[in-house]
């Protein structure tokens, strides 16, 4: 999974620019798909927080049209998040 992310760097240009108050690389392409990051497993609150912020940072790098980061510990929590995931996938929402 992380190897895929590492290799996605070429979707950005190597140069630097300021974006939302931080230094980032400009996008190579105009469009990046909706970014939904789902973390699962028995994690601590601190790990959950790191995952959520990382997904937000990834979104700042990739600049998708919309993004969502959720963490679930079990299938019940996933069911609860399904509505948010589907809503994020809706075009124009």
């Amino acid at each position, binding site marked *: 999974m992380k190897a895929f992310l*590492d290799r996605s760097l070429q979707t950005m240009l190597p140069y630097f620019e300021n974006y939302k108050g931080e230094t980032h690389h400009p996008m190579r392409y105009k469009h990046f798909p909706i970014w939904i990051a789902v973390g699962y497993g028995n994690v*601590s609150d601190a790990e959950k927080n790191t995952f959520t912020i990382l997904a937000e940072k990834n979104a700042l790098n990739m600049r998708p049209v919309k993004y969502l980061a959720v963490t679930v510990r079990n299938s019940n929590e996933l069911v609860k998040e399904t509505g948010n995931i589907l809503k994020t996938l809706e075009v124009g929402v």
Partner: protein
Amino acid sequence: MKIAAINGSPKTDGISALIIKRMEKLLDERIETYHAMRLVRAETPQETIAGMLEADILLIVFPLFVDSLPSPLIELLTRLESAAYHGAAIPQVFAVANGALDAAQTTLAIEMIEHFTCRAGLPWGYGIGIGAGSMLYNAGDDWEKGLASDIHHALCDMATAIKENRSGQNMYVAPDFPRFLYKTVANISFWREAKRNGVNNLRDRPYINH
């Protein structure tokens, strides 16, 4: 004192290697260095993984990849976590992350190493996040003065903490170098590197439909 280091960079002679060598000098101790990519690519025996945990200190040095750890380092830490869970050895862990322009961008990566230590049951020392670390290629041998001096002092503090067997607060440092100049130098080096590798247009879009 037995000190082991993990070089998390895909390069064996990059900034991470330079930092490990610098720590070796500051500590005046031999550091047994393990290269994460080599270890995960080879069928590394479990004994080798477990052997890393026999050190008193485990120093993890890596470049920032997409606001996180390089994938081979994540895989190696996963194996270490499993070995630590079954073993009795507990080295104290210190980390140095080498980031892009802003040192603060290494915060999450340092947090991830701290999470690893919690899961593996290893004592956490602390981490240093370095911004614009690639400038260290130009720092020469004397890091005490000039653009690398803040980084030098941060590494000195970490070496002292290691010797005194104590933990500390994470810290973030960057070379004393103007940001605009860093960006200019970096942009020129990207262009040169592209030329050297036969790329004429860095802004090319091979998948033009997007």
